């Protein structure tokens, strides 16, 4: 089945220690997104790749970066995680903004 896969499902990292979350897709969608969802809050878009073009949201902290080495993979790098970065991170894909499909998410804990 075509899908969006996020690894790992649960990630524990130390305060200030860089961490990378990964997302892969078999849908051949050209757009990939990263959302952050904190408890009882709406998922918040951090950035997205439209093909190879990176689009950062204005209020996304510099601490968050992303890489998309090819169509299928996208990574979220948190350079120096703080306690406030603990959240569920959702990867999604679409074909030119339609057919949004989400992965199961990675729950990040910062200790």
């Amino acid at each position, binding site marked *: 089945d075509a899908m969006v896969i996020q690894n790992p499902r649960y990630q524990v990292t130390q305060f200030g220690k860089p961490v990378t979350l990964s997302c892969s897709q078999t849908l051949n969608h050209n757009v990939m997104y990263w*959302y952050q969802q904190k408890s009882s809050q*709406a998922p918040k878009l951090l950035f*997205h790749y439209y093909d190879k073009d990176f689009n950062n949201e204005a209020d996304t902290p510099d601490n968050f970066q992303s890489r998309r080495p090819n169509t299928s993979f996208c990574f979220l790098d948190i350079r120096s995680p703080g306690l406030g970065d603990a959240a569920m991170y959702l990867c999604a894909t679409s074909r030119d903004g*339609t057919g*949004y499909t*989400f992965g199961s998410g990675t729950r990040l804990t910062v200790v």
Partner: protein
Amino acid sequence: DQQVKQNSPSLSVQEGRISILNCDYTNSMFDYFLWYKKYPAEGPTFLISISSIKDKNEDGRFTVFLNKSAKHLSLHIVPSQPGDSAVYFCAASAYNGGATNKLIFGTGTLLAVQP
């Protein structure tokens, strides 16, 4: 600035009855609206959508109603089943010239369907 609002954090309904989940938005440029369902420890899954050129869209037990003048949409589930218990997110997007449609989400409503 919350552009998409779901003012009811939770809703409890008896099995077999109707569930009505509400969503309000502030951005008049939004032209496409979606509902997502999310179980714990899973990502959101698409449920139903509606374009701004329509006022109703139906898919089985699920119907979405859009009132553009009131900037309000609602999701009706009839009849409700225990398996419908989940968090429901309302999302909206605005056409931006054919690039990418970014989804703006509400905070979600936790629906509990009691057997």
